[in-house]
């Protein structure tokens, strides 16, 4: 059963570990390739993120998020940490004005009524500047200072956009019963 995969991983089940690598390897590789310009560093980041996933698998709670969201969170946490400490440069070639446009994704790319699809709808409701700043942060992995420099928006405003943007998206997730107001998921 898919939702039990991380629980099996936490128990050291070798088959579950292999299944986990096959299920989420592409996702982690995709995030790493976007955040790290150097391929070797991206590979190291994926190895490191998986080790962190093995360490934290037992903390996965299906009442709080989907397994995929949990894995993405763990990977992002470790990769952002690495990015900042290594002073690496994220890939920035795709920073352009398209970031202010609403994101359209084909239905087959995102399962409907998941946290991701709800979050995307909420993202598209943000003001263009706020959406752009949030995308530069989440998708491009830029630090707040880098965003301020790239967009010529004051640092305090950048921080405010990111905080309010995440709060708004989270509120939509709460309203959709994907998360509860305390950050706890109310529906499986």
């Amino acid at each position, binding site marked *: 059963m898919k939702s039990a995969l991380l629980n099996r991983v936490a128990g*050291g089940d070798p088959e579950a*570990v292999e299944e986990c*690598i096959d299920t989420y*390897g*592409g996702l*982690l*590789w*995709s995030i790493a390739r976007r955040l790290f310009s*150097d391929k*070797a*560093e991206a590979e*190291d980041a*994926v*190895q*490191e993120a*998986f*080790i962190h996933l*093995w*360490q*934290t698998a037992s903390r996965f709670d299906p009442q*709080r*998020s989907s397994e995929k*969201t949990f894995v*993405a*969170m763990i990977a*992002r946490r470790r990769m*952002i*940490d*690495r990015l*900042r*400490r*290594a*002073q*690496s440069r994220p890939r920035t070639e795709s920073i352009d004005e398209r970031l202010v446009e609403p994101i359209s*994704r084909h239905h087959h*790319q*995102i399962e409907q009524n998941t*946290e*991701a*699809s*709800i*979050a*995307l709808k909420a993202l598209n409701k943000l003001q263009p500047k706020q959406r752009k700043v*949030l*995308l530069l942060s*989440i*998708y491009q992995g830029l*630090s*707040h200072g880098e965003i301020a420099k790239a967009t010529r928006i004051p640092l305090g405003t950048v*921080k405010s956009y990111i*905080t309010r943007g*995440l*709060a708004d*998206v*989270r509120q939509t*997730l709460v309203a959709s019963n994907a*998360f509860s107001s*305390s*950050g*706890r998921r109310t529906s499986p």
Partner: protein
Amino acid sequence: MRDPRDRLQELLACRATQELDASEKKELVQLLQDHPDWAADSFELTAASLELALNEQSPPLPESLRRKVAADARQYFSKTRQPSEPIRLVQPSKAQEPSGNAPGATRQSALWMGWLAAAALLVVTLMSWLPGLLQSPAGPLQARQELMAQDSEALILDWQATEDPAAQGASGDVLWSVQQQAGFMRIQGLQPNNPSRRQYQLWIFDRLRDERYPVDGGVFDIPAGADEVIVPIQAKLPVSEAHLFAVTVEQPGGVVVSSRARIVLLANRDPG
């Protein structure tokens, strides 16, 4: 007066998108204690949801990388099945907290050339592994002896103190088992640290890896009042042929690339 919940959200958003510094982490911990209705990772989960929404169709993991990840997993789970040991103090002493900047030069500083160019390493925080260790029933001394008994070929090297003020009079040894991918540091006389200001970090140089990319052996503390500590080594990548161990003083949580400003202990398999 500003609503502390606004500040809490700001810190949670910062944590979800970039690293917090030590004072921000401390502030966040306090705010979360004051507002227990907020989950610490609620904004991180939100950011992860956005990540999934924005992520293009994922390419498959390259086969060579997949093999490395699988090999790391085998190493990791074989290690976690070994008995883990808590950090335990043996005898109290009156050492001082390390302070000030140390002279940059050390006897073996040449071995660290190229470190600044190192692109990356594992980021290890004590919090990621300490809880598990603290739950372990056995003592570190016993575990160290068991490891020595299990692996007669385990490497034992004496620490050499550098000229750093925190290292004066420090001694001890490092035990490393390639077979078990486990080991322990035994340290006497190293100055206690204030974890909110500085922490010690172990680096393991592996002959089969690029010298610029030593393996992070974990961040650890020397508590006040101890004159000997035994610290389990937590190498986050497999180590094939360790030949040099080094302990540095770093910022809380450790670093990926050391500035080499403060090297306190060295254990060299090939001295001279």
